[in-house]
């Protein structure tokens, strides 16, 4: 990311005065705009936009072998890519790194048992479970991509529709079978759980802030991404950035991040419940 030392100083000083380039305070989030059900041919989809950051998420649900120690769990895997239209430095190495970071963070968030109840995805113990392939495409990057991606992921997972599956108990000596109902009308929501989101805080100078823009991310020394669920519980923390940070006083910042996570999840929930009309690509 291209930024000069004087621009970094300007941003850092603005941060310490609690007045950011676009007029926000340290803990103010840009407006979060979401929509779901963009593409009818995949199991679930969602798009989230915050400032200039624009992320699309598709979910494809398939039946696959049950995983986990006892074969009682389903699987959620993430693939991420920054579509080359973001206007970022086009070096392949940089974009590969960014893709990997995004994937790893999301995979880590959803690997925690509390975050995603993978056991509920299991249909036949030891044999068949739902496999969710989640594809995250970053259309535009204007800072805070991880958080925005996590909002879209949450929305997409919670709006994923799958065919109705019935478990037919086998007769004596025969194993159970699965029957998949092909009727499109019988599709139902797969997950009713509580997928967490990421809320990232960046250290600019000596001040922490939420929802960094691209310039602010280029100026930050440290970044902590906190996984938060709807009860405000912390489900994982990932650190980025080369700087070291002082732990004192960080506690309050993390609490604020968790609080923001709760608010955003509440907001996402309301938007989904309102069944707003999909705008999608053709607007």
């Amino acid at each position: 990311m291209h930024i000069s030392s004087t621009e970094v100083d300007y941003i850092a000083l603005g941060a310490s005065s609690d007045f950011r380039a676009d007029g926000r305070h340290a803990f103010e989030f840009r407006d979060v705009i979401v929509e779901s059900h963009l593409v009818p041919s995949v199991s679930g989809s969602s798009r989230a936009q915050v400032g200039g950051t624009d992320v699309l998420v598709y979910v494809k649900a398939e039946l696959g072998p049950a995983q986990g120690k006892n074969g009682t769990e389903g699987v959620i895997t993430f693939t991420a890519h920054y579509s080359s239209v973001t206007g970022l430095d086009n070096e392949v190495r940089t974009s590969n790194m960014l893709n990997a970071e995004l994937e790893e963070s999301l995979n880590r968030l959803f690997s925690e048992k509390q975050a995603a109840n993978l056991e509920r995805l299991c249909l036949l113990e030891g044999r068949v479970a739902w496999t969710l392939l989640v594809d995250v495409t970053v259309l535009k990057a204007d800072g805070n991509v991880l958080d925005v991606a996590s909002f879209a992921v949450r929305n997409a997972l919670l709006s994923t529709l799958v065919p109705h599956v019935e478990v037919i108990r086998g007769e004596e000596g025969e194993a159970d079978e699965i029957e998949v109902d092909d009727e499109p009308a019988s599709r139902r929501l797969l997950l009713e759980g509580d997928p967490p989101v990421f809320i990232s805080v960046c250290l600019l100078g000596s001040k922490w802030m939420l929802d960094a823009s691209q310039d602010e991310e280029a100026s930050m020394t440290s970044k902590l991404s906190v996984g938060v669920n709807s009860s405000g519980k912390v489900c994982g923390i990932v650190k980025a950035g080369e700087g070291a940070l002082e732990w004192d006083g960080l506690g309050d910042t993390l609490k604020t991040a968790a609080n923001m996570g709760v608010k955003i999840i509440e907001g996402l929930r309301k938007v989904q419940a309102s069944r707003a009309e999909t705008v999608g690509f053709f607007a």
Partner: protein
Amino acid sequence: MNEMVDVEVDDHCTVVVRAATRSRTEDVDRSSELGQMCVVAGDQIHVEPGFVRGRGTLTESGLLIATVGGVVDRVNKLVSVRPLVSRYTPEIGDVVIGRVVEVSQNRWKLDVDARQEAVLMLSAMNLPGGAQRRRTYEDELNMRSLIKEEDLISAEVQELKQDGGIALHTRSMKYGRLSEGQLVRVKSALIKRQKKRFQMLPCEIHAIFGNNGYIWLSEEEPRKELEEQGRNTETPKTSLDGRRRISRLRNSILILNEMSMTIHAQTIMDVYITSEQAGLREFEMLRQNVREQLIERVRNRGNF
């Protein structure tokens, strides 16, 4: 639900989450374009014999074919196609703001968001200790102490090479490295070529309108004293009030950019003043519905 009830929540810990809405059609300053002929690439353009081929066209078997989508311009016998949105094409005398991508032996290479990079030769750069003296070997070694990679510079387009290369120079002391201010990037087509590129706006913020779509806002006048060329001198820091004004200007400019409206002092100040009168906070201006209402109000004042 929330286990953190005893935490002092910062008053400003806010967020708005909403569903996507259809935004209104991108409005375009279309006063002069209505009724003119639009073509797309590959279309044949009707011409009289004796025409002269202009930009955006080619001749094939005596026919004139458009090579870009746009409006057909006919000036006397010159027929050309003018696209609405195009990459910045420099002209001699333009003021540009660029970011240094390379520092080599005796020149800086800058990204000015054009088709090619721009070059500022050491010999074309104003130096400390007097404007006109021969560049020494020491000067070459010290280039990075003046301007290094990622720095922003304002300069003037001196020459356009045949292969499209852009040569810059800093003609006077008001050009040079930029520090202590805010960069705003917009579509270059929206910045009209005007005489005064260095202006002080009525809200007492200085602005440099780069023809390449880069705008620099600062509280202090971008002028370098002869002794101040070095990197270690203290530039006065922007005041908090200055930051507020810069932020409001920045947001006003971005709104005009989003709506594809021309950007110059008058249009910027129209949005600026309207937003102040509406009692909007700087950040609130950027909300989609607010943006549209602001432009609506500005239009109704009859300035467009």
